[in-house]
């Protein structure tokens, strides 16, 4: 992927090759994504009008994730980009999940110790 053995070594080659790089997004794709995003925004607001407990949070986050995916894949060209850049992005989410998971697991477990303290002090 990042092996440069095929890289041109002469100026002319380099110049020629430089003409073509980077993916150009067709305008209709960009506009389509914009439209979808707006529709989804309306949808996520609308979803709060109905009581679907306990699913409301999941729906809100689900829609947000679809929106985020659209932005990442098309506005940010990740779909056409180097796979390694996608790996970088996914890694960020993975490590964030790890951090969140660890902290959440623990705080939920010890919450009773905080609650009983607050009760005993009538706070």
């Amino acid at each position, binding site marked *: 992927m990042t092996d440069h053995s095929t890289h041109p070594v002469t100026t002319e080659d380099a110049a020629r090759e430089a003409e073509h790089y980077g993916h150009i997004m067709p305008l209709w794709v960009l506009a389509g994504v914009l439209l979808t995003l707006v529709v989804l925004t309306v949808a996520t607001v609308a979803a709060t009008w109905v009581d679907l407990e306990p699913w409301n949070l999941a729906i809100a986050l689900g829609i947000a994730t679809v929106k985020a995916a659209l932005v990442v894949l098309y506005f940010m060209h990740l779909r056409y980009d180097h796979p390694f850049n996608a790996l970088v992005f996914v890694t960020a989410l993975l490590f964030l999940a790890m951090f969140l998971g660890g902290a959440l697991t623990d705080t939920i477990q*010890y919450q009773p*110790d*905080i609650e*009983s*303290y*607050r009760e005993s002090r009538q706070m």
Partner: protein
Amino acid sequence: MHDLILFAQSRGGYWLPPPDSSTAGDVDRVFYFILGVASFFFVLIVALMCLFVILYRRRPGVEAPGSASHNNLLEITWTIIPVILVVIMFYMGFTTYLDIRTSPRQAYDIRVVGQKWSWVFSYPNGHVAPELHVPVDRPVRLTMTSEDVIHSLFIPAFRVKMDLVPGRYTTTWFHPLRAGTYDLYCTEYCGTGHSDMLSKVVVHKPGEFETWLEQAANLLASMTPVEAGAELTRRNGCLTCHSTDGTAKVGPSFKGIYGQRHTFTNGTSAEVDDNYIRQSILEPMALIRQGYQPAMPTYKGRLKDQEITAIIEYIESLK
């Protein structure tokens, strides 16, 4: 310098203090198991290192004999063996830890409050003391919290340690095996007096604990108010911030303040009388004496009314 080198102690071995709680022995077993494994590998590694340095030292004109540059079987062997050993270590540490953290149901309950820089232990009958008194051969559970910053209660002989966290309870327990007096340290850094935040654990002989508790709780009945006041200021940790000899510590000295006029940071002033002292103890933040920080915790709900009266009499007596 004669004590520079202390050889094996009678119990607990060279490294650890004598184990005096029911779980301490198990902790020590884990310790010595890991020590054994670690020593083995350390000696092996250093021995090989020295051997190679001697055997294969560079000599002019002699090229290295050489050997293979990889060997998967070997690599796997020295991966697997440590894996097995650390799994055992984890398991031993884990089971003993569960014992340390899971208190038996019929434990004797003592509440602990940590504050800068003293300990307050409260017993079921309402008595408070700056030292931890416990009966021998009976599990004791400590339910702990802190008034200000994080502290940590550490009793080396019992191999227990647990933080005291403001805004919540933490618990630990131990089962002392022998009567005696043991060290108790604060092991979470908590500011200026961190290294003074020390106390003792007194493990009473069978039957003696109850007598002690009864007498100690009945302070006001068995002592004059001034004596009781002196004892109360000691037990409640007042003396970590207030001296009785006129030197200023974190707070002003008690000596001679009764009857003085003090000015406060808000510009007002007042004479130190019974009411003022009572207020200082119950609402310390209301009036802050000039030249001092608002550092004193409130004792509302922790001192009974007669106890405060006794303290006032004691302060009055300090001329």
